């Protein structure tokens, strides 16, 4: 460890960033795999089913009580699923537009993973801040990158050269223009209050002045609903809608390319959950306890902060999964109506009211 002190600051920055990128990437990938498992299990329970409970590696027989329990909970299922995706035949239909067909899965996954870069997932470990890139334009970066994700879906529909994916991607386009404006406008009041676009600053403001969900409940509701649309989850899974579009934009995909879409969807869910935690639920802080509310002074506290962040994120993931079984899918025009005629006026009104309150009472 001594050797680190001899490196110049740039080399240290590169080293630590590479380390953080590696760890965060690993954690996000694992979280995606287990989010799929949780989704399958929770869905099964809501539908009075059992869910995956068979996958058992050979060594499970040597664990007396815990082994069968783990098997029943399906803990090894993600590994089996991943292996299956890797080993399946990667079939490319003859009629596709090959370049776009190959490009689309990558364009879906990469933005979803890039968003995670600016999320402060903890205070600090030692003297390292627990965020990969502490950008001053963090939130703008997020919105810029997230909007790219939809191109993956549109390209998948265009590149597949087949009717169901095409319909799915048309819907996706319509969906994007209806919710993204409302989503962007819903967070403006937060910047009016915090006077910063840096996500770490937003968390600091919330630690000092109370969580944003209490000050901006309307913004939170709009952002939450828009992020359902953003991640293509029910009730807004129009591009995918299995029941009417045979899987929508990814109908023609198989094997690892399909897995990349799947991965992108869940990575998007994780990124949205992380954004909501950061913007509205105080990030890694917990109120009323100073040790948890201020940046960590020891390694243990730093780890607890990361744990708090993950717990809050897990809560939103469960909400995403639960809502899937609560509401039927919205119709295309209902979603547009909701976006254009309800949320955009509400978000605008919210901005004006917040701005007036800040202007009148803060001076």
């Amino acid at each position: 460890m001594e050797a680190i002190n001899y490196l110049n600051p740039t080399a240290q920055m590169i080293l630590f960033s590479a380390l953080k990128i590696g760890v965060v990437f690993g954690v996000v990938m694992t979280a995606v795999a287990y989010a799929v498992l949780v989704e399958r299990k929770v869905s099964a329970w809501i539908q009075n089913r059992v869910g995956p409970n068979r996958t058992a590696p050979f060594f499970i027989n040597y664990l007396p009580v815990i082994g069968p329990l783990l098997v029943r909970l399906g803990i090894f299922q993600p590994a089996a699923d991943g292996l299956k995706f890797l080993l399946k035949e990667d079939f490319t239909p003859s009629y596709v537009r090959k370049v776009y067909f190959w490009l689309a899965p990558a364009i879906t996954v990469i933005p979803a993973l890039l968003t995670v870069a600016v999320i402060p997932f903890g205070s600090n470990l030692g003297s390292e801040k627990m965020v990969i890139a502490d950008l001053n334009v963090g939130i703008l970066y997020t919105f810029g990158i997230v909007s790219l994700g939809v191109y993956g879906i549109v390209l998948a529909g265009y590149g597949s050269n087949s009717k169901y994916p095409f319909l799915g991607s048309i819907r996706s386009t319509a969906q994007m223009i209806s919710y993204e404006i409302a989503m962007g406008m819903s967070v403006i009041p937060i910047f009016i209050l915090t006077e910063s676009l840096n996500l770490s600053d937003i968390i600091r403001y919330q630690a000092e002045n109370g969580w944003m969900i209490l000050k901006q409940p309307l913004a939170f509701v709009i952002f939450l609903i828009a992020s359902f649309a953003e991640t293509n989850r029910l009730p807004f899974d129009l591009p995918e809608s299995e029941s009417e579009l045979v899987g929508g934009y990814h109908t023609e995909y198989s094997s690892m390319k399909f897995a990349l879409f799947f991965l992108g969807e869940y990575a998007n869910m994780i990124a949205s959950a992380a954004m909501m935690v950061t913007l509205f639920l105080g990030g890694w802080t917990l109120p009323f306890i100073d040790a948890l509310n201020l940046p960590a002074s020891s390694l243990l506290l730093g780890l607890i902060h990361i744990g708090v962040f993950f717990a809050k994120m897990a809560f939103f993931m469960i909400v995403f999964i639960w809502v899937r079984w609560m509401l039927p899918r919205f119709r295309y025009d209902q979603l547009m109506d909701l976006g254009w005629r309800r949320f955009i006026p509400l978000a605008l009104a919210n901005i004006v009211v917040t701005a007036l309150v800040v202007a009148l009472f803060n001076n």
Partner: protein
Amino acid sequence: MSTKVVDRAPLTFYERTYLPAILGGLKVTAKHFADTVFKGNSVTMQYPEERWVVPEGYRGAPYLVKDQDGATKCVSCQLCEFVCPPKAIRITPPGADGLTADRKNAEKMPKEFEINMLRCIFCGMCQEVCPEEAIFLQKDYSITGENRESMIFNKEKLLKLGGTHAGIQKWKNKLEEAQAQETFPVDAQ
């Protein structure tokens, strides 16, 4: 022509906020979730360990049966072979000087009796046509094998799976009647 106008009350403001729908959905899903997780009310049947009990009269796989004395009932008449619509049954008769039947008085029994379970359509015609009540559609519904050969069940296997079917023992009764004729007490003169 009278038209009935259905009175549809317009949605109230509360209903239009979509909140009742969300709360209703939450209630239903939470109830089912709790039912499954805490009460164990799952509709899933853990298949290889649990199997459904088939009702009486279920038409499963056809097997050969033995009578209560453990003798093969089939007399190799080949009616089932002729009637079988998908030609799943193949009987090899014993021939002129082949093996004799298990039981006395019955003329013969098949040398080999094969049912190809891949061809069988479980129609039950073999059971219906059998003059000896020797073949019955039983309750097996999951017949699996690792290759095509293993799905052709031979006589030995069919008899083992079929078990015993106690019924009227036609040939035994005829034998006993004949023997009774022999020893019939003739009036002494």
